[in-house]
């Protein structure tokens, strides 16, 4: 692709579509604005609505490499940013035991002994990059503060080497499952996109594009049932990926429509708690058979 930047909204949405992602208006608008304003996008929403997929689609639409940082509790600078290669440094010191310390010191704190981790890599690589910081709500507060420097100035300070500024600004996508409130400072540096379950037409289009073998009528029935179930108070509402799994399951089993028996045997693909399944069957006016499971 010659120009990775998005030309306009239509361009954004058509390129995301050809990357296999069907965006709605909010997603298209925010993606386009993030590109133009040079700001990171913070995507929040329930699990399984396509937050991570969006980052992958943007990377593929821009012909960029995707650098992914999966966050977890206890993630620290050494694993996210950079780390000095102690072993190599030690070897070097031992090998040069007759050299003056001053010379060695300048040597061992050079790029050769630096292990770059995703964040530093995203900044220093001289190719178009999409940086995905996945599940940012999992990290500790200190790490969030560390992210601030990167997200606003696109630079990293390594005490021994000085400040490393971005060669090329990466397109940054952060995702959050909202398990805790992110700091105001972080949110202020980002464009905010709340992703919810898609509306019925869009979900149908997603099913049809991901599982093209599904007949129109079945897809329609599927997404309407899923929508109806999402209105219930379930412990875990069905996600898009679970809708797709359900579609594939029905297809595999050769069903062309959903009725009581089909629902009772396959609803476990969609819902992961027994209490949810019972509730769903009752809601769909199919009395759960207490004997079966």
């Amino acid at each position: 692709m010659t120009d990775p930047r998005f030309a306009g909204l239509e361009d954004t949405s058509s390129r995301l579509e050809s990357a296999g992602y069907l965006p709605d208006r909010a997603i298209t608008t925010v993606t386009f604005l993030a590109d133009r304003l040079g700001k990171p996008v913070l995507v929040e929403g329930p699990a399984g609505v396509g937050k991570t997929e969006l980052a992958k689609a943007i990377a593929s639409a821009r012909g960029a490499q995707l650098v992914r940082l999966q966050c977890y509790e206890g993630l620290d600078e050494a694993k996210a940013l950079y780390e000095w290669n102690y072993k190599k440094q030690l070897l070097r010191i031992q090998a040069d035991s007759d050299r003056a310390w001053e010379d060695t010191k300048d040597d061992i704190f050079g790029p050769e002994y630096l292990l770059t981790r995703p964040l530093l890599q995203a900044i220093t690589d001289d190719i178009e990059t999409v940086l995905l910081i996945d599940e940012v709500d999992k990290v500790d507060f200190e790490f969030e503060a560390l992210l601030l420097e990167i997200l606003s100035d696109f630079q990293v300070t390594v005490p021994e080497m000085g400040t490393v500024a971005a060669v090329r600004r990466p397109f940054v996508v952060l995702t959050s499952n909202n398990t805790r409130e992110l700091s105001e400072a972080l949110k202020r540096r980002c464009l905010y996109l709340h992703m919810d379950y898609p509306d019925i037409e869009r979900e149908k289009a997603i099913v049809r594009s991901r599982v093209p073998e599904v007949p129109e009528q079945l897809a329609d029935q599927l997404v309407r049932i899923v929508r109806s179930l999402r209105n219930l108070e379930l412990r875990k509402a069905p996600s898009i990926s679970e809708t797709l799994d359900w579609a594939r399951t029905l297809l595999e089993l050769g069903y062309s429509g959903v009725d009581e028996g089909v629902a009772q045997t396959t609803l476990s693909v969609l819902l992961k708690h027994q209490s949810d399944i019972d509730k769903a069957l009752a809601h769909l006016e199919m009395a759960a058979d207490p004997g079966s499971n």
Partner: protein
Amino acid sequence: MAAPADTRLSGLQRRVLDLAHALREANVPVAVSDGLDAMRASALIDLLDRGQLREALAATMVKSPSHRATFDLLFDLYFPARGTQPLPGEAGDEAERPAEYDGDTHHQEARDIDQFLAELVMRVMEGDDAAIRRLAMEAVESFGAVRQRDGRVSFFAYRVFRNFNLGGLLRRLMTESGMDGDAEDAASALTRRLQRDEFEQRLRRFREEIESEIRRRQVEQQGADEIAKRMARPLPEDLDFFRISAEESESMRRQIRPLARKLATRVAVKRRRARDGRLDVRRTIRHSLSTGGVPADPAFKARKHHRPELVLICDVSGSVAAFARFTLMLTHALQGQFSKVRSFAFIDTVDEVTRLFSGGDFSDAIKRLHTDANVVWLDGHSDYGHAFTAFHARYADAITPKTTLLILGDGRNNYRASNAWVLKDLKRRARRVYWLNPEPIQHWGTGDSIADEYARFTDGMIECRNLRQLAEFVERVV
């Protein structure tokens, strides 16, 4: 509220600023930089597309899903779909305006209500969204007008809904689409359920269209700032338990689980940080391997935490029922954080309700609270005194030195005996006793409230009027 007119700003920029002000008034935090971003964003997009403008402004100014509803409401006020004074962003929407509709005449020939409903039913069945929107406007025009004494015409939603109720419409839709009656086989029951969902959603949209149309007309008459002030509703976490509508209660209920998850994460973080400083030799040596045996990165042991046992005694009588329900849901959603949770409900006598909530299906538990539990003994008016003595007689052994006891209620005892000695005895047995009171502090001890008397036998009586205060308290206890 409106920013002073600054000639250096364009009309659009001023509108964006006004919107930012209104959002702040409604307690949605919008930083100065957010407002600037919003202006920069609005310069980049196609202003003729109102949906695009809405998303662009939302992306820059709204940073939390619970603020989005407020934003949408205010956006509609400051960037109405069609206005008598078109704004830079509005011209494109003129096309959406139906040709036969003339916004300035209130003398349009009003259609017969039956005729109107017949068309509405037909359009809803077809799922024609544009037609539904047009009908919503017509409904406001024909049925929502009230002529004020000064001769001006105002529009009110209740006037519109006086003419037909949406529940009746839903039944009619079901009948006319052949979806009523007793279905023999399950497949048609399923179809019926799906069809019903579909109709419900369209009728909901019809109602929203009517409400937004009425707001638009009010804005035309009185200006956006005025309406914004009047419309301001507190955010879900600030809603007073005493004054919530059914709809708000629903939206609050959906917040319970995320809130519980957030609290659990916060508590876990706190616990992880509270190290007691003892060196963990095994892990330190393991870490030192990567630095050639030098223990440069010592590891410390975490302290073992005791998880409190929780016993709740909740007043579930009418006045404080909403508060009790939320507290019950929240504490049971947090079950994992406590070694044990037991809950009791009372009105004038007490019964254990732990089993209702332990299944995890809260809405069902709430429904069964009044049918499956024996909480009424005499007349169904709160009687703290009797409920306490009954608790003492039957469940006193639930309180152990490990227990944190929470009592929920307003302490309005209908002038009956307080039996505060029970509380005194329970306090002796329990580790801690807290009382959560959903009434404002200044009302405690007034009228038939004996909150003051009970407060003496607790470790603290805490005012708890909204989800935010409730969450703060729960975090402290955990």
